[in-house]
C-alpha cells in the first residue's frame, strides 16, 4: 500500500516538473495555447472518467456542466461584477446543485437509459443557453468575460494561464488518486463491477453514485470557468451534444478507470484535428475512421491497449 502511494507520487512529481519545464523553455505561444486547451480538456476527461470508469455510469450530457460552469462564471463576473475567483465558487456550486437535483432521479436508471437521461438533460440545458438570451446572450454568445488575476500575477499571458490550468489539473489528479485509493474508491469500483453485489455487502450505492456524479460535474464546471476566462467569449455552440460525445470519446479512447488515460485521451483528441488540418475536406472522414479503428482494435482504450502490446512484445 505504501509502495503504491510512493510510485503514484513519483509520477505526479514527474508531471509537475514536465509542466514547469515546458512553461520555462517553450517560447512559442501557439504550443502553449494548444497545451492549455489540452489541460482544460484533460480536466473534463478526468471528471468524466471518475464517473464512467470507476463508478461505471454513462453520461452523454456532461457538456451541460461544462457550459453551466462557463456561463455561471461569465454571468456573475460580467452582469453582477463579482470577482472571478468568487464566480468560480459560484460556478462550482451551481453545477453541483443542478447535478444533485438531476442525479437523484436519473441515477436510478441504468445502462442505456442512464445514457439517454443524461443526453436529454444535456439537450435541455443547451436549449436554455441558446434561448435565455437576456441572461446568456443567446445564440450570438457572451462577450467581455474578464481575464483572471491574482494579486500581482496577471493571467492574461498564455504562459501564466498554462501554469494555472495545469496546476489545477495536477491538484485534481492528486485528489482523484486519493479518492480512488480510499474506502470510497473501493466502494465505487465494487459498484462498477456489480451493483447488486455491492448492495449486498452494504455499500450505499445510490448515495455513492450521486456523490461521484456531483463531483464530476464540479470538475467540469471548473474546466468551464477556465475556458470562459481564457477565450473571454462563450457561445452555446461549444456545449452541444457533440461536445458531450467528444468528452466521452476522450475518456473511452484514453482508457477508462485510469487517471493518466484521461490525460492521454484529452491530448489525442485535442491534437487530432490540428494534425488533420492537412486533410482539409477529408478531416471528418479520417476523424470518424480513427475513432472506429481505435475502438475496434483497442476497446479498453489506449492506455491499457498499448501497455498490453508493450507487455506482450517483451515476452
Amino acid at each position, binding site marked *: 500500500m505504501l509502495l503504491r502511494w510512493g510510485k503514484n507520487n513519483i509520477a505526479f512529481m514527474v508531471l509537475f516538473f514536465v509542466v514547469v519545464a515546458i512553461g520555462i523553455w517553450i517560447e512559442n505561444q501557439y*504550443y502553449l495555447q494548444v497545451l492549455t*486547451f489540452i489541460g482544460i480538456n484533460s480536466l473534463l476527461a478526468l471528471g468524466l472518467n471518475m464517473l464512467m470508469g470507476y463508478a461505471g455510469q454513462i453520461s452523454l450530457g456532461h457538456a451541460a456542466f461544462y457550459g453551466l460552469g462557463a456561463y455561471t462564471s461569465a454571468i456573475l463576473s460580467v452582469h453582477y461584477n463579482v470577482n472571478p475567483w468568487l464566480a468560480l465558487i459560484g460556478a462550482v456550486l451551481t453545477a453541483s446543485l443542478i447535478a444533485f437535483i438531476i442525479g437523484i432521479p436519473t441515477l436510478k436508471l441504468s445502462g442505456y437509459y442512464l445514457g439517454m437521461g443524461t443526453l436529454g438533460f444535456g439537450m435541455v440545458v443547451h436549449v436554455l443557453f441558446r434561448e435565455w438570451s437576456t441572461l446568456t446572450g*443567446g*445564440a450570438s454568445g457572451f*462577450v467581455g468575460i474578464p481575464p483572471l488575476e491574482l494579486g500581482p500575477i496577471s493571467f492574461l499571458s498564455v504562459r501564466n494561464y498554462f501554469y494555472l490550468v495545469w496546476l489545477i489539473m495536477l491538484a485534481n489528479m492528486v485528489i482523484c488518486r486519493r479518492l480512488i485509493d480510499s474506502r470510497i474508491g473501493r466502494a465505487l469500483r465494487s459498484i462498477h463491477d456489480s451493483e447488486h453485489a455491492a448492495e449486498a455487502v452494504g455499500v450505499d450505492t445510490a448515495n455513492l453514485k450521486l456523490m461521484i456524479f456531483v463531483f464530476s460535474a464540479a470538475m467540469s464546471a471548473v474546466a468551464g470557468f477556465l475556458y470562459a476566462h481564457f*477565450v473571454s467569449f462563450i457561445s452555446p455552440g461549444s456545449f452541444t451534444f457533440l461536445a458531450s460525445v467528444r468528452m466521452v470519446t476522450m475518456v473511452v479512447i484514453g482508457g477508462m478507470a485510469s487517471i493518466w488515460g484521461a490525460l492521454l485521451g484529452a491530448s489525442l483528441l485535442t491534437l487530432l484535428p490540428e494534425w488533420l488540418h492537412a486533410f*482539409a*475536406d477529408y*478531416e471528418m472522414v479520417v476523424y470518424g475512421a480513427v475513432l472506429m479503428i481505435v475502438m475496434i482494435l483497442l476497446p479498453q482504450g489506449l492506455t491499457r491497449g498499448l*501497455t498490453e502490446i508493450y507487455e506482450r512484445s517483451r515476452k
Partner: protein
Amino acid sequence: MSMQKLTKNVVLLLCVIFAGCLLTSSWVQAASTYKIGGIFAVTGPASFLGDPEKKSMEMAVKSINDRGGIDGHLLETVIYDTEADPTKGVMAVNKLINKDKVLAIIGPSTTPTTLAVINFVERAQMPLISCAAGIQITQPVKQWVFKTAQSDVLAVASLYSHLQEVGIRKIGILTVSNAFGESGKHQLEAQAGAYDIEIARAESFGAKDTDMTAQLTKIRKTDPQAVICWGTNPGPAVVAKNVEQLKMKMPLYMSHGVASPKFIELAGDSAEGICLPSGKILVAGLLPANDLQKEVLTQYIEQFESRYDGKVSGFGGYAFDAVNILAKAMKGSGGDREMIRAAIEKMGNHVGVSGIFNFSATEHNGLGPDAFVVVKIKNSTWELLR
C-alpha cells in the same frame, strides 16, 4: 501492470505527442513572400459561407500573384477550417499568429467565431478582416478588426424602407434560432418604430426543422400584411413551401441570408414573388451601365464561375473584397502590420463586390445603405426592384 511501467509509458507517449507537434511545423518561410492567413467555416453548419469564401480568397490571391504580386512579393496563403466552432477558430487564429506568423488574417465566416478571436488578434496586433455580418464586430470599433460583410442593420433598413414605400404597416416575423437569425430579429425589432411598422407576432424555428406550419399558423392568426422570414438555407426554403401549402396570400420577404441561386433551387415554385434585400451581385447583369460596381461584379462572376463549378453567391464576395482591400493596403508597407492597419483605415472609395467601401478610424465596416438593393424572384430568376 506496475505503476512504474505505466508512468514510463505515459511519459514516453507524451513526449511522442509533443514531438508530433514540433514536427508539424511549417517550412522555413521564404523571405520574399507575403504570408496571409484565412480562417473560414469550410465544413460544418456554415459551409455555405466558408466554402465560397475560401475559393474566392484563393482566386483573388492567384490573380494578384499572376500580376506580379505586391511590390514584387508573391502572396502565400495559409487557410484553416473552423467548422463554425469558436474554439477551433481561436486555435486556428493562434496558429496563424504564432506558428505561421502571417501578416494579416481574413475571416472568420461567422459572428460567434469572430467575437471569440477578437481579443487574441488585438493583443497580438494582427490585422483581421472578418467576413461575418454581426454589428458587434465593428461597433464599438476595435483597432485591428475590420469587416467586409454588410451588417444586418443595413439589410433590415433596406427592407423596411421598401416596405414603407409599398405601404406595409403590420408584419409577422419568423427567425432562425442561431446567431444570424437572432441578430436579424434584434434589428427588425429595433428599427421597426423608425419605419412606422408594427411587428404583430415574432416566432422562431430551428435551422434543421422540417415543418414550420405551426409557427406560420400563429402568425397568420394576427392577420399581418406581410411575413418576413430571416434565416439561411435550407430553413427559409421550407418556410416558402409551407406558406404556399397554407395558402397564405400576403407577400413573403426573406433576408440576404438566402441571396443565392440555391434558394430558388430549393424552394422551387414557391419562391416565385418573394422579395429580399441583397448585395448587387445577384442582379449584376441588370444594373445600369453607369453603376460603379458593375465592372467589378461582372469580372468576379466570370472568374468565379469559370474556375469553379456552380453559380456565384454574395458570400464569396466578402473574402474577395477582403483580399483586395488587404492587397491595396499592403502596397508600400513592406510587411509592417501597423502600416497595413493604418492603410486600411485610410482607404476610401474601394469598389468591391459587396459594396463601395469607405473606411475611417471610427468606421471599420465601410459600407453604406447603397450596398443593398431589393430584388424579387420572378420566373426562377432575380429582378431588380430598387
